[in-house]
């Protein structure tokens, strides 16, 4: 449904996107993951035809965005990074306007009602957009992107600036939509993609550095082998028994609590989850367990790791 071939974008002398190619299949949810300034927004603006690529091409539903922008845009619902809203319009007026501009003719009123229902905006229908909270504005932005029932949804940072409850709601909404449409969304938050997306494209400094399934990404970040353990028990014995657990490669005391508990850093073989074995050990020995946490990797750590992998060297 979405195809990018060798996309390059120069801003003056600065090359923001350096030859990115990818495909998104029909019905898939794909996340563009990368730090701020990595070129995600620029890629999305080229896909929607707002910016022309310096070279390369992209197509939406088989239609080339450069040669036939109007036909290509007919298939797209787009949530820009800065949600494009008219503060003086009411929610209903605004959604009607967007639907009309996208060519929704008959049944426009019921289509707008359905969209407001789907995005939880029904009670806000007559409110002026300028008076809505950030969370509701974001919803109006998403409603605006889906009101004409597009085949392809392009969402630039759909959950940015929302409170945790709203984030959960918006993610659920996106998942709900994904059954019907193809979704490409961008984010700089690592857990976001693993929760929402099926496939992940990782962008760094304008390059596509890795492509993975959401599961693969979760394994990469979770199974990297570091545990944090907090318990009360004889340190010497704890350390010796910990290192004897199958899969554990090392253990050390990292800190001591005033309460008498010690904090251990346990390293394990990659792709091994030893939490259950350690928990069992602690219970069998009668120590008092206070905390057992698998350290998840930060986005920055993951990037370093991916870059290492692609370069084939270890720093």
């Amino acid at each position: 449904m979405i195809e990018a071939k060798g996309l390059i974008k120069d801003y003056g002398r600065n090359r923001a996107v350096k030859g990115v190619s990818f495909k998104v299949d029909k019905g898939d949810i794909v996340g563009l993951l990368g730090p701020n300034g990595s070129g995600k927004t620029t890629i999305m603006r080229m896909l929607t035809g707002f910016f022309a690529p310096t070279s390369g091409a992209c197509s939406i539903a088989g239609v080339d965005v450069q040669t036939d922008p109007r036909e290509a845009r007919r298939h797209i619902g787009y949530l820009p990074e800065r949600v494009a809203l008219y503060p003086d319009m009411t929610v209903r007026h605004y959604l009607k306007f967007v639907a009309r501009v996208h060519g929704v003719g008959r049944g426009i009123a019921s289509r707008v009602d359905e969209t407001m229902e789907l995005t939880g905006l029904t009670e806000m229908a007559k409110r002026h957009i300028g008076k809505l909270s950030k969370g509701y504005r974001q919803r109006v932005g998403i409603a605006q992107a889906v009101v004409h029932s597009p085949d392809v949804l392009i969402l630039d940072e759909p959950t940015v600036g929302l409170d945790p409850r709203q984030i959960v709601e918006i993610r659920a909404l996106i998942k709900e939509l994904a059954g019907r449409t193809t979704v490409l969304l961008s984010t700089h938050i690592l857990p976001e993609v693993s929760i929402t997306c099926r496939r992940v494209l990782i962008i760094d400094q304008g390059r596509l550095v890795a492509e993975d399934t959401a599961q693969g990404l979760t394994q990469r970040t979770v199974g990297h082998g570091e545990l944090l353990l907090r318990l009360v028990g004889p340190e010497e014995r704890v350390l010796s028994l910990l290192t004897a657990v199958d899969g554990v490669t090392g253990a050390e005391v990292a800190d001591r609590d005033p309460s008498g508990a010690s904090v251990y850093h346990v390293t394990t073989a990659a792709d091994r989850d030893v939490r259950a074995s350690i928990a069992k050990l602690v219970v069998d020995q009668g120590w008092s367990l206070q905390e057992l946490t698998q350290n998840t990797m930060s986005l920055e750590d993951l990037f370093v790791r991916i870059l290492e992998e692609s370069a084939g060297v270890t720093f």
Partner: protein
Amino acid sequence: MRFLALFLKELRTFFASPLVYIVSAVFLALSGWYFYTDLDALITFGFGESIVDHLWQRLYNDIVRILITVVPLITMRVYAEEKSLGTIELLYTAPVRDIEILLSKYLACMTVFAMIAGSTALYPYLIYRVSPFDYSQLWSVYLGGFLLLSAMVMVGIFISSLTEAQLIAAMFTYGAILLLWNLNWNEAAIPDSWGGIVAQLCAFDHFEPFARGVVDMRHVAYFVSLSVFMGYLTMRSMESREWRGRR
């Protein structure tokens, strides 16, 4: 359908803010004052002249002068506001032609002016009720006014497409319009080496014959080509986002 939606959205935006009402009120007060004083001046000092023949030329030159100073206030927001709100991205990723966006903005501005300037038809009507006269001359005045406003609105729209800041757009539009209007007031000051082209750009010289009741195709062509040229520049300026990478 799509175009109508764009046009109605532009129009709604105008009437959702108090600016248009304030501009109309000030315009009506000023034009009413000019109507009264111009008429009074002719009655007091126009010995033996036909008042009706001479009133319109004076009055409409005065009215047009107010109108063109109002243009920047109306046109300043059309593109600049969309750029600063970010809604420009909504319009330029919708399945509409760039020219449809431009024309919807132009037509909305002209509709606002039609409503403001249309109210001036009250003055000939008042005179006509007192003393019927041949009003065929007035058609040319309104045609000239329409052409002049159309060109000035396009100048304002173009300048608005260059910036995100409405006040900057307004100020530059003021400059451009007043310069075009007064360019020729001292013809002798324009160097001969400029080949007379500059003198031909003066908007007042092209409007003034319409106020006298003369419709000359050369003047029509001037306003039409100025409008089209400004429209062309606006399209190019909006396209520049594609390679400059700015909204």
